[in-house]
């Protein structure tokens, strides 16, 4: 089994998740090579062939050009699998490579089956096994699903090149909106999710945070609805927190949210759905309606 791993470069930096690609390959027992369009000052350390193109020439986000570069490496390596992280780079580029190879793609892989890959569905509530029917396959890996490998050594660098013609051009980066609150230092974070149902119920979440001496956080739908400010969003597109106590109120537990809070010491989840995927990371799941349970809890805490 041969795996071609696709590393990525974000604003000049080698994205550290490439070590998870190696972790996956190790779990699979696959031989590895790597392809990277990146910064020559930021090369990954590993023992093997690195197909490399300079991002100063080929851009950091230029998907048509990167597709052609990855395909050069595919041509040279003839891998059974081409493996990306399920990141903004990976989910954008992987299907282009898969389409060019006429290969099956399995997205957001979180486990390995027999000749098949386990992937979550229904927002992480359910899972299934997907088996490629094509001789070669393209995968994207769920971040955090495979323990990072510890690749080391210095790679043999093989330069790759292609034309830079593209209908898609990255004009600039914009930094994240100024964060009002640094949740990463909070001892207790009490977050509101879509399950709070109405804007008024956010006040209950706020009152619980106050009773616990903590900060208020939010999942993405609550921020999108304008119920809480973006500076309080926890998750892959918000802040990463690791408080001693994390209380998830009406949060289903989508992967993107869990990515931002799974390092918490103790997780209390309150949800009406006893099958909600938040149960997977929770230490305590209370199956209850927030409108009834939160006031009762606040009262008990104030005694």
């Amino acid at each position, binding site marked *: 089994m041969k795996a071609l791993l696709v590393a990525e470069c974000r604003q000049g930096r080698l994205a550290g998740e490439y070590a998870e690609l190696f972790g996956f390959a190790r779990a699979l027992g696959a031989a590895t090579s790597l392809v990277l369009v990146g910064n020559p000052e930021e090369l990954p350390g590993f023992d093997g062939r690195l197909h490399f193109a300079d991002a100063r020439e080929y851009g950091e986000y230029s998907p048509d050009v990167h597709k052609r570069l990855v395909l050069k490496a595919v041509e040279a390596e003839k891998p059974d699998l081409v493996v990306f992280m399920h990141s903004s780079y990976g989910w954008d580029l992987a299907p282009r490579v898969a389409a060019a190879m006429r290969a099956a*793609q399995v997205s*957001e892989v979180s486990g390995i089956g027999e000749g098949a890959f386990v992937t979550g569905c*229904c927002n992480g509530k359910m899972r299934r096994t997907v088996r490629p029917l094509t001789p070669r396959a393209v995968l994207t890996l769920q971040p955090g699903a495979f323990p990072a490998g510890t690749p080391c050594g210095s790679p043999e660098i093989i330069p790759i090149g292609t034309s830079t013609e593209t209908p898609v051009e990255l004009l600039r980066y914009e930094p994240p909106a100024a964060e009002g609150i640094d949740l990463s230092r909070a001892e207790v974070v009490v977050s509101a999710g879509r399950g709070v149902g109405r804007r008024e119920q956010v006040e209950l979440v706020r009152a619980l945070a106050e009773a616990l*001496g903590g900060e208020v956080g939010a999942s*993405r739908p609550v921020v999108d609805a304008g119920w809480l400010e973006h500076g309080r969003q926890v998750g892959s597109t918000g802040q990463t927190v690791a408080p001693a106590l994390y209380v998830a109120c009406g949060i289903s537990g989508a992967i993107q949210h869990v990515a931002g809070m799974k390092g918490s010491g103790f997780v209390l989840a309150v949800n009406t759905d006893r099958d909600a995927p938040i149960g997977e990371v929770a*230490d305590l799941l209370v199956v209850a309606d927030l409108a009834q349970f939160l006031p*009762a809890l606040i009262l*008990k805490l104030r005694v």
Partner: protein
Amino acid sequence: MKILVCVKQVPDLEGRFVPNAAGTWFDESGLAFRMNDYDEFAVEEAVGLRERLGGDAEVTALSIGPDRVVETLRKAMAMGCDRGVHVRDGAAAERDPWQVASMIAGYARSRGFELILTGMQSIDRGSAQVGVLVAELLGFACTTTAVGFSCDGSTATVERELEGGAKGVVRLKLPAVVTCQLGLNTPRYPTLPNILKAKKKELLVLAPGDVGLEAPLAAASGFCRHERSASCLVLEGGADDLAGRVVAELREKTAVLRRGGAR
């Protein structure tokens, strides 16, 4: 300017999912269906763009699935799409992303669309592949995860959401496919007059064979519930009783109530 917006009908995720007999996907009975969240933003963006461009811009909404998806197409039309295309496919839920993309591209090919909008993923399958595959099959420019969008008729400028809330501003030459992230805009609620109007809008019904359905590249099995972590304690009961038990648990297993933190 001709705009195509692709919408999927998905189950409400609060529902209880039970594997079908083959274990390939869920049994639909008892589930409520609605428009995929991400696709609502695509519909709003398409309709908003047509309003901004004025003139002869038109928006076609396409959905693939059994007869129930007509409801979602009617919603898209009530939000302002000019017409609907229903690829009637009872097996749509079992199709892999390649097959779904082959049908969308098969419909769109040679119909002169300059812009195709869709959600970046569906909430049930979540592969995030279909939009990009459609672009590849059609040879269109493509970008994903739009949280900002503008279009002047020959190019589109898209803000892509990146890790940690940063954005990449990307310019694409049309024709293009853009996949939409949550929060791109504020999807409108269909008004009653528009719901009534939508019932009279044109709805074209096609079969998968009419739009070039291809063979699958992948097969699914073993659909099941994601196990909860073994250490998760589940509490059920009345609110007062639960509150007491939760406080006891927090006292025993965390330090947050010990330092006089609770007020």
